[in-house]
């Protein structure tokens, strides 16, 4: 199952902000986390994350700083700002509303639609475009 581009784009802001609300992070780690949490179902093109991070930075939702990582490379870390937390709360409310609406519709249609979980369960375990932890 591939999630369509519009959905990925729309959900990128809350996902990135929520991850940064947990702890400061950098691009590669954020992508790894997305892979992990979605069980490989959310496929972001790696490079596209960075314009998103830069947009959030421009809006003042995140702040960036360069640090030297343990392997000696310079790495750009992002952290969430108070404005970012507000934005995250707002996104949360909106997504809850969307989610609640869809949930009630799904339950009304339960009998006429095929169950979504049948295929996804198998995929979540070992899929993803490449072996993750081998």
């Amino acid at each position, binding site marked *: 199952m591939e999630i369509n581009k519009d959905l990925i784009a729309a959900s990128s802001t809350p996902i990135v902000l929520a991850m940064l609300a947990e702890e400061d992070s950098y*691009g*590669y780690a954020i992508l790894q986390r997305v892979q992990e949490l979605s069980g490989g179902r959310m496929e972001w093109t*790696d*490079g596209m994350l*960075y314009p998103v991070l*830069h947009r959030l930075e421009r809006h003042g939702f995140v702040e960036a700083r360069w640090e030297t990582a343990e392997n000696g490379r310079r*790495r*750009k870390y992002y952290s969430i700002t108070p404005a970012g937390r507000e934005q995250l709360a707002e996104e949360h409310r909106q997504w809850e509303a969307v989610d609640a609406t869809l949930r009630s519709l799904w339950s009304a249609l339960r009998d006429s639609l095929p169950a979504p979980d049948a295929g996804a369960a198998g995929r979540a375990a070992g899929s993803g475009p*490449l072996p993750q932890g*081998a």
Partner: protein
Amino acid sequence: MTTPDPAARLEEQIDRWRSFLRRRRAIHATDVAELEDHLREQVAGLTGAGLDAEEAFLVAVKRMGALDDLSREFAVEHSDRLWKQLVVSSGDGAEAAGARKDAIVAFCLAAAAAVAIKVPALFGLDLGRDAAFYLRNASLFVLPLLTGYFAWKRGVDARTIGWLAAAFVAAAVFANVYPFQAQVPGSAAHDPGYTELLTALHLPIALLLVVGIAYAGGRWGEVAGRMDFIRFSGELFIYYVLIALGGAVLTGLMAMTFQSIGVDVEAFFQYWLAPCGAAGAVVVASWLVEAKQSVIENMAPVLTRLFTPLFAAVLVTFLATLVLTGRGVQIERNVLIAFDLLLVVVLGLLLYSVSAREPGAPPGLFDWMQVVLVVSALLADAVALWAIAARISELGFTPNRVAALGENVVLLVNLAWSAVLYLRFLGGRGGFARLEKWQTDYLPVYAAWAAVVVIVFPPAFGYV
């Protein structure tokens, strides 16, 4: 070509990938660094999962996304980057530090030029009362500093600097030792006389050569070095005009706002803002040209592209009208100057389009347009010269007329031979480089003629 060591091979591949990214305007150096860190993490993760370095690199690059898509995404987020921001040099690294140092030196020299023009006032020379002094020496307040800027920037050797300095000293001597006569004998106010005005007009032209030698910084002997100076001069002119327009707006607004509170700032403009601004702006404009030369397309060739067809059309129409109506050129006082100006404009159009033309490109429509322009200008000028020659003894040889005639000859020779070279090029009997070489070789001729006017004319015409 393959390096046996996989680590070195990987570095090589990453280098190449990085250089591809760098070419994208929307992706800045810091972004490249960020993406590279990502790529290396990804490669490390994949090799840890059992892939070899080569495979890991390919997969990591693929996951990064197509370069065009990536570049487009960055451009959407950073649309400002498609507009080259020039004055605010951001970023870090040696390049930005060099640019900052360059800007600081340029602004210090601009300030020095602004101060220099006020120094004579300390010795009681008034900008209004002693206008003639300031006119004669205007270029000497600014051009030495500009020359100094380029001498510093290009690291010109001490011997050349000595010669350049000597040229300025000589210019200062010739501008100031001659006992110039006032235009109105006996009048208290020293209005500049004819030869004095000629000196004021020609000294900057002669001294531009000195600036050019410093600008070329050891490459003056090469066609390419001199051609760079030609390109520079066109851009300098455009930037100077833009700065002057901005200055005019500033002046106007300031006058209006201060007038509203009843304060007259005219004296401040006349004695401080205008002269200091005009002097400093030369250095600032030069710095701008230098700073942006690799960033923005040159404007002068763009303007020549726009105006060459228009000027050609006007000149052809003029010639046609001349023939059809049978009118002669009216010999008035300024007719020679008018035709000199025409030739200067045509030469400018030719020069700056030559400066931007790819020498290897085959002849095109625009080249024919150039030839039409030059030939019609030559014909128009020939008609005017013919009319003047017939009456020159009757009109008399005043310094202005001789200077204008000399200029006309200098320009005519250049354009005539240019037309010949251009036609040979269009006929496939000679490369375009010949025309480039002719134009760049001719640069010292302008300076030489200007020097003759400055040095020989005043004594020859009795300092009137």
